[in-house]
């Protein structure tokens, strides 16, 4: 603490940022909570329904449950691509002698591109008629039988809208994990090798425990980002065909701005927040406990 500070100086520095934050983030959270207990179309009078929205959501709304399961599928695919891909490439990168900077830059490139541009790009990649990059690629390697219209096939659409999201941010997580891997002391690794540890053992017993705190942070960031994923499914399929690629976020958006059911949309939004908090709690619980064991 600075010796010469006054209460006034603290307020002068703290109040402007808090004000913006309150208007943009804190107040809307409280408003959403409040709205979730009402039925309101934005025009007629608000009607208090108590827990009615929540009860309908959890017991009567099949679209909600479809969207929830889809969200979990979307999450799993994103995490495998982002964290798995990131860990793989980061550890391969530490073994390279040259070109690390180039690989880092190239690998991060997709993160710079807007979701709308990515949606355009993947719409063409998945296209069947004329054959897009993916279908043509399958044909070239002799798997032409697998060709399909990835975005209108109910069985593939969820994976098809998840992959672009995983692809776009894997570079970001790779950078974070790579920096952590570099910080593992060389002596530990060398000592383990002298003791005859294999590459795999060195990785799991020495390196991974060392980067665990960063791994936890990365998992939390990736999970909360995947749970709020919206742009790419909304732009590519708008949840369709049917509800095959509907996520909670796209369902909430449509409920709010297509059906103008502000109350019920807020209920879904509150659920998405709770889902994020539960996910963070679970990650901390699971990964921390393993660290103690």
């Amino acid at each position, binding site marked *: 603490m600075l010796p010469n500070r006054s209460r006034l100086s603290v307020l002068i520095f703290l109040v402007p940022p808090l004000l913006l934050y309150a208007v943009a983030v804190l107040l809307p*959270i409280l408003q959403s909570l409040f709205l979730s207990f009402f039925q309101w179309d934005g025009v007629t009078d608000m009607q208090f329904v108590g827990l009615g929205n929540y009860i309908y959501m959890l017991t009567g709304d099949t679209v909600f449950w479809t969207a929830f399961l889809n969200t979990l599928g979307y999450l799993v695919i994103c995490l495998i691509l982002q964290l798995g891909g990131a860990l793989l490439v980061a550890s391969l990168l530490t073994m390279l002698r040259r070109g690390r900077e180039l690989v880092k830059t190239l690998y991060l490139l997709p993160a710079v591109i807007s979701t709308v541009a990515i949606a355009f790009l993947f719409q063409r990649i998945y296209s069947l008629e004329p054959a897009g990059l993916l279908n043509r690629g399958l044909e070239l390697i002799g798997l032409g039988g697998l060709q399909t219209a990835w975005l209108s096939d109910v069985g593939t659409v969820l994976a098809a809208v998840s992959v672009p999201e995983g692809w776009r941010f894997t570079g970001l997580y790779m950078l974070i994990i790579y920096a952590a891997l570099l910080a593992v002391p060389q002596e530990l690794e060398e000592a383990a090798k002298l003791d005859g540890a294999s590459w795999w053992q060195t990785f799991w017993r020495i390196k991974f425990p060392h980067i665990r705190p960063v791994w936890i942070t990365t998992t939390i960031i990736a999970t909360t980002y995947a749970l709020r994923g919206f742009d790419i499914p909304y732009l590519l399929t708008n949840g369709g065909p049917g509800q095959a690629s509907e996520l909670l976020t796209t369902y909430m958006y449509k409920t709010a701005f297509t059906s103008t059911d502000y109350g019920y949309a807020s209920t879904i939004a509150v659920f998405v927040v709770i889902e994020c908090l539960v996910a963070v709690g679970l990650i901390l619980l699971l990964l921390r406990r393993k660290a103690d064991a």
Partner: protein
Amino acid sequence: MTTTMAPRRSAPRLSPQPPLRQHRRLNVHRTLTSIVVALIVVVQVYPLAWLFLTSVRTEQDFANGDPFGLPTGFTLENYSRAFSTGNLALNILNSFIVTSGAIVLIVVLGMMAAYALQVLGFRGSKFVRGLFLIGIVVPVQIALVPLFIDYAAVNLLDTYQSIIIPLAGFSLPMSIFLFSSFYEYIPRETYEAASLDGAGPYRIFAQITFPLSLNTIVTVVMVNSIFIWNDFIFANTFVLSDGLKTIPLGLQNYIGAMGKVDWTATFAAVCVSITPLLLAFLVLNKAMIYGLSSGGSKG
């Protein structure tokens, strides 16, 4: 730190060179690793290369051609069509306005809050930190409906501010934590010496903390620019008139505007829209990569 580590590191090097066979195996291993990394990078970057190649193809070539083939001809006509059909120039201008507005808020307010929390310190600062942490975990969608209603009440719908406020608000916490974690490393003695010389909190902020923050500012600006320049959800919800549309919304209009999608022109527009960020990224990529990796490991 490096000086104390040097003697210990050199110890194993005293042992004789590893036998030749082991050496060779190591080389094979390295080559394999390089090949795998190269393959992964190609898969990762190929869609982008393809995007660019398509933007210089002739329409004819795109319609009949093999997506893997090289363009048969080179044309910039797609670019002129892209500029003449949409409001591309206006969209870029709007994106600049929104991005710079939000970035200024994020940097200035982020530094101020971090200074109050980390340097000045006060009772309850832990609680305030906790409040800011909420903004990192909570998804932005929670704010859409309330802000839409609030904006309608105070006539802010369809303005630059309507996008700038939530973009800045949700990015503020990360900026505060980046600045705070940097301020931790400024030695207490620096401040105590300045205080003894009679400098108050404002002068210390202006003459010590702010000038020292420049590197962190570059990081915060770069990282946030990506997300704000590319924002889709806030712009899509709060902006209705064509005159205010940012790049992502402008691009989306390409499909509607032309009925049948003119893919080569659309891809030319996409290329134009990503150029400013791409240039900034390639020029400043060291600063940005540093910022992204340190931001994650400290968060």
